[in-house]
């Protein structure tokens, strides 16, 4: 590769073809000098000289002096004397970085890594934006004084990551392991993928409350997504099980549909003060009734419809409350089942243990966001961890 040691590429961060050429050269391990025409006027001037006044990027100077303007990967490899078919077969599905998950931590990491010109593939099995996407209003994410909807925040993150060249693929990872060459092998529902580094940002899902009736009436009266299913409870009575931030936030959302909500809290309400104050308003109006230190024993119904919940207060007295539906928000379960037996160490609940570099027990496999043991389950924290992980991954790939 001595002949191609002094390639100069004129491009810009917003230019997808520049990213494609840069990714190609990186993948081929070919060194090049990058001149961003937006950052230095002399780079733009030089580019215009090379193209005889045409605004064309990427413009690439080869060591033999030849100039390529907006070349395809095929043209670039031919000009460099490379056999692209051989390269394709050798490099089949080997990525610089694969990010598992598509929530805020994952997408932030992708923004950072792609800006660092690290080729990045994001694998999402469900909804881009993850749990954040199914949240009605996110009120505590900095920078949005009126709050932002989960869908909008996810959309912005996705578009930002894609602008810098991240590729988002809908795929599910079933297993992760390391091959003899040190590459990380991901077994997915669409075949095997290989990567030099992996970031696990699979987040968490709402936990089941594990009581009779919960499975039986799932989606027929028992729900875990207020923004998806709340609309079916217009002018109806519902119960919400849970007392944390999510439970209260979702209860507030559900007030726009339900005629009355019974909030069933096993111990005490642990949501932030501001959410508690909001709930208080509805309690005063009689729209919400709060049951503290109350166990929900069963969800009952007939003919495929939920009719009531059976509850027990702290003195052991049981009673029945008539409701048309139940929404469950009792905490989070880590999405880490696919890691069991992989060598990635999990804590007793199933969250991933990492070191100070956010690296897991497998060299080159990192974790960030809600899936990480000790995470604070906040979108702002997940975003911060995504950025940190990206920088640590850059160091790892440079070594």
């Amino acid at each position, binding site marked *: 590769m001595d002949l191609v040691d002094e390639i100069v590429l004129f491009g810009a961060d917003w230019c997808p073809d520049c990213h494609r050429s840069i990714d190609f050269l990186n993948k081929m391990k070919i060194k090049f000098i990058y001149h961003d025409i937006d950052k230095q006027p002399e780079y733009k001037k030089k580019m215009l000289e090379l193209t005889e006044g045409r605004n064309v990027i990427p413009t690439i100077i080869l060591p033999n002096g030849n100039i390529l303007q907006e070349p395809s990967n095929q043209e670039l490899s031919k000009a460099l004397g490379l056999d692209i078919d051989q390269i394709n077969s050798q490099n089949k599905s080997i990525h610089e970085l694969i990010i598992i998950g598509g929530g805020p931590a994952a997408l932030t990491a992708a923004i950072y890594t792609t800006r660092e010109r690290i080729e990045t593939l994001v694998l999402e099995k469900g909804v881009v934006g993850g749990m954040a996407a199914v949240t009605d209003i996110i009120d505590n994410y900095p920078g949005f004084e009126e709050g932002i909807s989960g869908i909008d925040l996810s959309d912005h993150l996705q578009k930002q990551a894609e602008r810098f060249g991240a590729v988002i693929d809908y795929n599910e990872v079933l297993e992760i392991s390391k091959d003899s060459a040190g590459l990380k092998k991901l077994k997915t529902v669409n075949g095997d993928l290989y990567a030099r580094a992996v970031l696990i940002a699979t987040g968490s899902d709402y936990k089941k409350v594990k009581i009779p009736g919960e499975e039986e009436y799932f989606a027929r009266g028992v729900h875990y997504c207020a923004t998806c299913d709340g609309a079916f409870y217009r002018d109806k009575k519902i119960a919400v099980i849970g007392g944390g931030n999510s439970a209260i936030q979702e209860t507030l*959302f559900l007030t726009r549909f339900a005629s009355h909500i019974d909030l069933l809290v096993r111990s005490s309400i642990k949501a932030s003060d501001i959410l508690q104050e909001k709930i208080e308003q509805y309690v005063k109006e009689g729209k919400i009734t709060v049951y503290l230190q109350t166990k929900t024993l069963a969800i009952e119904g007939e003919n495929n419809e939920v009719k009531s919940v059976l509850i027990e207060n702290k003195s052991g007295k049981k009673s029945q409350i008539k409701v048309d539906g139940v929404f469950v928000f009792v905490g989070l379960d880590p999405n880490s089942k696919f890691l069991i037996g992989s060598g990635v160490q999990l804590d007793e609940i199933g969250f991933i243990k990492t070191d100070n570099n956010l690296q897991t027990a497998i060299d080159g496999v990192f974790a960030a966001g809600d899936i990480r043991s000790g995470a604070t389950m906040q979108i702002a924290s997940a975003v911060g961890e995504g950025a940190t992980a990206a920088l640590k991954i850059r160091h790892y790939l440079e070594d």
Partner: protein
Amino acid sequence: MLKSVTIFTTNTCAYCHMVKKYLSIKGVKYDEVNLDENPHRASEAQQLSGVLTVPVTVVTKIDNSQEVIVGYNLARLAPAIV
């Protein structure tokens, strides 16, 4: 061959958003029934799907056979729109 695709959605449902995005990428035209704007049609979605959730995607083929897909389920949605 597809005759029509109808999706029952709500404004806040992220999975609905994903189904719409997927169909748009695939160039499939669809009709949307937004249950926030048309609450009286919620029972129609429930009758078709048997559940109280959105998105519900109803794919009708040229021979009038119908497939009802609940949620953002690419494993079922992808082959249904071919």
